[in-house]
């Protein structure tokens, strides 16, 4: 990264009012502080546009609703397919939410300012992805039990389901950040984004659905949960690097 990164130039980010507030003063913030500010800014912006936050959740609820209507309302059958329904729904919902990850910031020039700020772009992208997870992954994890209960899953499975969706969605957000960064600036990129992201997300789907299934049947779900966590850790380590490189390429 440092090969591209201009040395500290002290360029203040002036893209959005929130950012200007956060970046006021000409001193160069240390790396982690800058990442924290970027995270806070994204959260603040998101809470001012609450409508957008609800969309992936509503989408998730809709997808869950499709299955009883399309297959059968029998709870016994629905319970059997519940892990698959929950994970396919969570995967699609997080995919839908990915379009918001960089789009607005790319439009108004914030991403360019990030790239020029002299701060590590990798950390800033990681902060953005973390904010994205807090705004979509975590709510999905909290909503998954609700969907599961509607599919006839017993309440005892709730902690396992929350844990698996929470951990798995970390990996999904990180994998998705690469795809979102690569497709920046491509018009009507939705289908392409899913073509890029879904094949890479399949291991998360496999382990996540397995953990959920074991949670529902009361089996030992630690092994798939640990594999999910391993994928999340690998994502934390490598995905921001790739996403930052992709953002730079998109800005060129």
């Amino acid at each position, binding site marked *: 990264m440092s090969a591209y990164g201009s040395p500290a130039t002290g360029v203040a980010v002036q893209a959005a009012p929130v950012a200007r507030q956060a970046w006021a003063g000409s001193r160069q913030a240390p790396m982690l502080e800058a990442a924290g500010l970027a995270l806070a800014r994204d959260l603040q912006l998101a809470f001012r546009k609450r409508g957008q936050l609800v969309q992936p959740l509503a989408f998730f609820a809709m997808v869950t609703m499709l299955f009883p209507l399309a297959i059968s309302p029998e709870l016994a059958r629905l319970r059997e397919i519940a892990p698959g329904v929950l994970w396919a729904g969570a995967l699609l919902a997080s995919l839908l939410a990915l379009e918001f990850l960089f789009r607005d910031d790319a439009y108004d020039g914030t991403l360019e300012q990030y790239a020029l700020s002299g701060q590590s772009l990798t950390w800033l992208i990681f902060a953005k992805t973390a904010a994205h997870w807090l705004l979509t992954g975590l709510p999905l994890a909290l909503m998954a039990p609700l969907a599961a209960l509607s599919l006839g899953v017993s309440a005892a499975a709730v902690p396992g389901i929350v844990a698996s969706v929470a951990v798995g969605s970390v990996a999904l957000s990180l994998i998705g950040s690469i795809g979102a960064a690569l497709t920046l600036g491509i018009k009507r990129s939705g289908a392409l984004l899913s073509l890029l992201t*879904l094949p890479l997300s*399949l291991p998360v789907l496999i382990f996540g659905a397995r953990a959920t299934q074991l949670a529902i049947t009361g089996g030992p779900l630690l092994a798939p949960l640990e594999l999910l966590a391993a994928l999340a850790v690998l994502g934390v380590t490598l995905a921001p690097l790739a996403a930052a490189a992709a953002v730079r390429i998109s800005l060129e």
Partner: protein
Amino acid sequence: MTWTWFHRLGSPPYVYTLAARLTPWFAWPAALLIIGGLWGGLVLAPPDYQQGDGFRIIYVHAPSAWMSLMVYTTMAVAAAVGLIWRIKVAHAVAASCAPIGASFTFAALVTGALWGEPMWGTYWEWDPRLTSELILLFLYLGYMGLRAGLEDTQRADRASAVLAVVGVVNVPIIHYSVTWWNSLHQAPSVMRLAKPTMAASMLVPLLMMLLGFTLFFGAVLLVRLRGEVLSRERSASWIREIVKA
């Protein structure tokens, strides 16, 4: 000075003429090996004691599946070289690899399905290897889709290179997770093909086909590379000289 041969590989006109000169050295051995391998596999090799003549599709299926992975690796290595050292020709190599690899993957899937019909009684079985192959096809399609979506060649080169590198890190993870997934859902009674105890009369044609397919890939890659270099350098003066000559 000893590295000049390497540095010349970064020059499009040099690569263009080199590719033209090398193509027959790949194409002819490939043709001979594939004809020989097919003759050995379809005529000389005895029928399998379990699968009868059905097993003979392995002579196309296994080399295609092998190539689908090898081409992806080649593509990712070329893309990484292009990304790190900013060599345009390396990006051209990566871009030329993708459609070839996708075709091999498609061939592996089709032959696998045709093979499945007599062996499993169904054209499609969610066998881990077939499923991995299908995911690999989507990885190729994503790569080509991203290139097609970006109009600026330089940006397409660099963005798709990042994708190829990310993909090659993921291919083993995908493969093992799919294998693990599959072992949960069905008894491991699916036939085991890669027996180490393959008779020499069956194995030798298979190895000939493997080598033949690899050389065939080399030949097609060189031809595609020339086309790619031509279209990228279309406004360069050396192309005008070649066209005039």
